[in-house]
């Protein structure tokens, strides 16, 4: 049997069809099973070389891609901003062309500028996988979130999903909005008005500034980290105030339906966007997201890296 898969790159979910998203999720089902074997390794990408090119720091995403590549028998090179020649004035394009000259088959790119993966994908024969570009997209995170919802609720269409927190700066939120909408979920964004502009309604989502209105209806709440490193002070008065108005406290968690899933892309700030007890509670699927991330990234590497170009 053969696939209808034709993409060498994964740049964002905006250009994906519902069929393509579902196909990645089905493929991830097969790769999740590999993690249960005695030998958790298959030769699907044997002989291929993957370069993890992280111009912006990240531990969990890089590790997840690295482990996914190992399980597919690909060879992996890690390059971070500080070890790359970018600090010596080389342009992104030249660095990437050098990697390609080394016959790198798959380039996993994390970059602070939106569009950097697209820029390289247009110029390289290698597969380019977006591991997060600026505030634009983080497609594998959204795919693993979709996978986790589908695994727990057996469907995505018709579910009410609340995404809470720093939406404006969040590539995770954007990719999730595209993916969830294409698969038929209702999405509500919640947070301070400075971080959740009405502009987002154009993407087919609702916007709310009162968390208590949204929690009782939600089937899934996805909490985003308040990004100190990206934040300038004027967006909200302070962390304490954010927690008081939008944090998922023990008290607020009581408003949730008993089967509502609590998700977070990590790293979590305990006591800021989520109380410790809630993060460790029965409704939390935060660690399932991490496990599923591995299967989803194996699927993406297999599909994009496996097609002959």
């Amino acid at each position: 049997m053969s696939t209808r898969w034709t993409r060498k790159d994964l740049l964002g979910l905006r250009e994906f069809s519902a069929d393509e998203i579902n196909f990645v999720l089905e493929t991830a089902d097969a790769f999740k099973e590999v993690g249960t074997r005695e030998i958790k390794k298959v030769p699907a990408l044997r002989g291929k070389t993957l370069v993890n090119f992280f111009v912006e720091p990240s531990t969990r995403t890089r590790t997840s891609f690295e482990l996914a590549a190992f399980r597919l028998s690909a060879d992996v090179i890690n390059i971070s901003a500080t070890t790359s020649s970018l600090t010596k004035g080389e342009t992104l394009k030249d660095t990437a062309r050098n990697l390609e000259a080394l016959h790198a088959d798959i380039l996993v790119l994390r970059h602070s500028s939106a569009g950097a993966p697209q820029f390289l994908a247009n110029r390289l024969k290698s597969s380019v996988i977006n591991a997060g570009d600026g505030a634009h997209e983080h497609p594998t995170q959204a795919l693993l979130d979709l996978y986790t919802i589908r695994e727990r609720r057996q469907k995505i269409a018709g579910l009410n999903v609340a995404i809470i927190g720093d939406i404006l700066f969040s590539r995770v939120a954007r990719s999730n909005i595209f993916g969830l909408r294409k698969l038929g979920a209702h999405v509500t964004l919640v947070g301070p008005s400075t971080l959740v502009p009405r502009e987002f309604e154009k993407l087919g989502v609702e916007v709310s500034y009162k968390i208590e209105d949204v929690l009782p209806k939600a089937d899934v709440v996805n909490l985003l980290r308040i990004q100190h490193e990206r934040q300038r002070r004027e967006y909200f008065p302070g962390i304490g105030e954010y927690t008081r108005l939008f944090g998922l406290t023990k008290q607020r968690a009581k408003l949730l339906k008993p089967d509502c899933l609590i998700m977070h892309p990590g790293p979590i700030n305990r006591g800021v966007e989520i109380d410790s007890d809630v993060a460790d509670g029965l409704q939390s699927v935060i660690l399932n997201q991490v496990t599923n991330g591995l299967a989803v990234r194996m699927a993406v590497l297999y599909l994009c890296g496996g097609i002959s170009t």
Partner: protein
Amino acid sequence: MNQPKKNPPAAVPVMDAEAIRRGLRRIAHEIIERNPRLENVMLAGIPSRGVEIARRIADFIREIENVDTQTGVIDVAMHRDDVGTRPELPVVHASKLPLPLEGRTVIIVDDVFYTGRTVRAAMDAINSFGRPARIQLAVLIDRGHRELPIRPDYVGKNLPTASREQIQVCLQESDNKPDAVWLEK
């Protein structure tokens, strides 16, 4: 000017539903004969038709010996040796084998046996789940043209073919069409 009409590729019927039934029933008998400890036998079907054939063989064994044989699914797509060299990527499925495999006889089940590459991939896949005592191979059709030193233990029908010919297998459960095997010239 009237050109003579080109004939569509001729498809010759090779097995009908009754022939398939008899072939699989005979395989069930042979499995029973060759494996005195039937409770250790497990049938691992290769998706998609191998899974259905394994189920049918298990039904025959139950009918004949009143023993329930375990069945499983062994996917070969991620163990193939030609990923990245073909224009289209094989679809991967989740494998599902009753564990542990130690001490058991795993019988790989597939519809058409051709180059042997699929079976090699299936053996690799099985080994990633554990180390069975032995692995055997049951196929509905053996069409020849081996590229690896692998031979089947149980064959429904030997069918000498030319490499350009194609074998079409239809099973009610997997194809939604009546059971039949065709040879397309």
